[in-house]
Each structure stands twice: as C-alpha cells, then as structure tokens.
C-alpha cells in the first residue's frame, strides 16, 4: 500500500489534491499533514502550494520542515505543484525577492502586464493551456502531447538548464510548465483540477518508482 503525504503548509486547497489521489489510488493511504514522522514514513510526497512563495517558505520554517523536505527531495518520489514547483528553483521575484531550494537552475518571474501588448496580458494566467511535453517521462504516460491543463498563477519559471525541462507552455511567451530530475517531478499547473488528464498524471505519479 502506498503512503502518500501531501505536505500541509496551511495555504491553498490541499484537500482537492488529496481527494484526487483518493480517486485514482483508492487503496493508497493519503494524508494531508505537516507531521514530521508521517513525512518520514511516506513513500511519496506531494509539495503543493498556492499564494505567495514568501509565505510558503515561512510556513515551511514555522513547521521546521525545511530540512526534512530537502531530505525528501533527495530520496523519495516527489510531486511539486504550482508554488511547490517554483520553490525548487534558485530564486523568485515574488515578495521582493525570495531564495528557493536551488535544486533547479533558473528564476521565477512575474508575468508582464506590458502596456504595449495588445490584447493586454491578463494576470493571473488563469485557465486551460496546452502543455508541450519535452521528455518521455513516465509521468506523461497516456497523456497526449499538448493536452490542456488548468493553470492559475502570476509568476512563471525560466529554467537555465534545458535538460530538466519536462514541458513548456505559452502565455505571452514560452515558460516552463513542468520540470523533472531523478526522483522529482514538478508542474506549474494543477493536475488535481485538470479533469481526466490531470487524474491520469496523478495516477502515473502513484505508479512511478522515482526513476526518470
């Protein structure tokens, strides 16, 4: 039986992630928790996140989870979602500049509400956008190229190492919508809100042994 822990940092709709896992893996044990022991016992970990990255890291530190999460990121299959993906980069522009885990080379920037762009780029980037897979990662199994997933975010990632990019999307320019390396897979969109293809991705994560 799989033990999946959704790390509870008190922000966002964590329960929909948990409910989606319960749907695709009825036999799995899914917990939304910030309990260290449970995190250690988990065989798969989900790092979700909504809202601002500064408060995300603050919540992590308040729960004394920074080191345990770093250790998980080097040992167990991890799925990062939204801010849970952005946190893996070197730094983010959000909240006046915020250091990330630095596990992936690149920066997180704000979508530009440029005045000369017609039509104007609305921020947040909200809705269903195409995801162009750039690797044959097991997590993409059974998901068609350019399938649409649900996005909602104001900041986006620019990776400097193309080998870690698992997918890109376009909103006023190309940005990174999925990254992968070793036991980590992380997405900018919300698979738990992305209909059947989102559930398929979560199912693939449950079956994935952490080898890319």
């Amino acid at each position, binding site marked *: 039986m799989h033990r999946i822990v959704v790390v509870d940092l008190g*922000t*966002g*709709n964590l*329960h*929909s992630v948990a*409910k*989606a896992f*319960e*749907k695709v893996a009825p036999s799995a044990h899914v917990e939304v928790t910030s309990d260290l022991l449970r995190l250690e016992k988990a065989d798969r970990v989900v790092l979700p996140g*909504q*809202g*601002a990255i500064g408060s995300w890291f603050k919540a992590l530190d308040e729960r004394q989870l920074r080191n345990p999460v770093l250790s998980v990121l080097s040992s167990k299959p991890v799925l990062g979602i939204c801010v849970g993906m952005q946190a893996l980069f070197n730094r983010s522009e959000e909240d006046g500049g915020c250091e990330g885990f630095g596990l992936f080379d690149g920066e997180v920037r704000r979508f530009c*509400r440029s005045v000369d762009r017609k*039509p*104007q*780029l*609305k*921020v*947040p*980037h*909200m*809705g*269903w*956008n*195409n995801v162009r897979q750039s690797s044959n990662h097991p997590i993409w199994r059974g998901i068609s190229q*350019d399938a*649409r997933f*649900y*996005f*909602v*975010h*104001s900041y986006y990632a620019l990776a400097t190492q193309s080998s870690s990019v698992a997918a890109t999307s*376009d*909103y006023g320019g190309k940005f990174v919508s999925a990254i992968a390396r070793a036991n980590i897979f992380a997405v900018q969109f919300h698979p*738990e*809100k*992305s*209909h*059947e293809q*989102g*559930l398929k991705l979560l199912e693939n994560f449950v079956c994935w042994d952490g080898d890319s």
Partner: protein
Amino acid sequence: MGLATRIIPCLDVDEGRVVKGVKFVDIRDAGDPVAVAKRYDQQMADEITFLDITASSSARDTMIDVVREVAAEVFIPLTVGGGIREIDDIHRLLLAGADKVSINTAAIDRPDLVSEASQYFGAQCIVVAIDAKRCGNHWEVFTHGGRKTTGIDAREWSVEMARRGAGEILLTSMDRDGTKDGFDLELTRTISDAVSIPVIASGGVGTLEHLAQGVLTGGADAVLAASIFHFGEYTIREAKTHMSQRGIEVNL
C-alpha cells in the same frame, strides 16, 4: 495553442438543491448538485460556479456539504458565491474543496475584506462579483439582485477591486440578466479594458453567438451562462464548437 477562453455554467443552489430547473434528458435527479456538476464535467465545462441563494444563514452549512460532495467527484475548478461575509466563511469553503470564492455585497460593505482575503488565501481564489446597471452614460454597481444601487461607478469599482487583490471579476449586467438578449458588450469591454485581471462576462446569454460576442467584441476572458445550458438547449461542447468556429481558442 495557448490559453483557452473558459466556459462556465452557473448553478443556483438553495438549501443544498439546484434550483431554476436543470433539465438534462438523461439525468435521474436534476436537483442534485453532485449529479448536475458531474454532467457538466462530462460535457467539458472549464469550471463550475455555485451560487448559494439560501436565505437563512443557518442553512449555509448545507452549502459546505454540497461543496465537499462535489469536490470528491468533480476534478475541475469550483467557485462558490453567495452569502460570504467573513474570512472564516472563505476558509470553510476552501477547506471543503472550493477553489475560489465569489464576493459581492460584502466587498461593498467592507472593501478591506477583499484585501485581507487576497493576502491570506492568494488572489487566485478571490473572485469579486459586480452587478452593474446602466445609468446614463456609465454603469453603477447594484446589490440585492439589481434592486439597490450603491452609487458606485462600476468601472472605478473594478479597478479598485483589482488593486485590492481580486484575482478576477465576475461581471453581470443587471439590464441583460434573464433577457436572453446577449451580454452588455459595451459594459464588458469597458471593464475588461480597465483591469489587467481576467473578466468573466455574465447576464443575458440566449444563443451561442452571444457567448462568442462576449469574447470577440466584449473582450471577456471567460463566459458564464445558466439557462441555455440548464434547459438542455445547448451542451457545453456545442458552445465550445461554435466558439472555435468563430476563431476563439477553447478547450475541446
């Protein structure tokens, strides 16, 4: 390739039951929010909005149960509006499985609620609903289903709400709501141009072309409709096919 325009069916819920007669041909219980939401999910709705029209606050807990049940079965974004007054109301709905909440009257009574909610939960889950009615050469914000004016200019109000951290605006024309004459395109264009957050057009949809015009002429980022979908006149898929034929990017 690119971001798709969203089509959002809206359901009125009273004491836990969908009202305004949803008539799917092959659905056993048209009043059951879970059954109705599942049907829209199968039709490829991009999001679903529930409007809680329950009058008594004691029955509001029922809405929490509805959201919880729907969220366990339907994996697309859910927005809930109606009767939200405090941060705690938002918290409870989000915990139950709502992805966004829509705030209307409470934002007018206390605009700080929008700032606080956005700071606390993130702009992505705070929708501000604006009911606007034409008054001379501008639009005013109304409450109580269009019966009570606030004297606030709708354009200024939308800019103020965006500034305070609203993630999007649900804009309803009270002149058009229920008429089937189409969106107030001028209103939609005015608000959409005034803010840099997404605008959902609502009120007046009678045909599929109305939906397309909301985007092409009104500049809406999403379109919301109730009756044309509820009464089985059109499916969400048919709406998307039409919009696609009109050159609009949709999620089909």
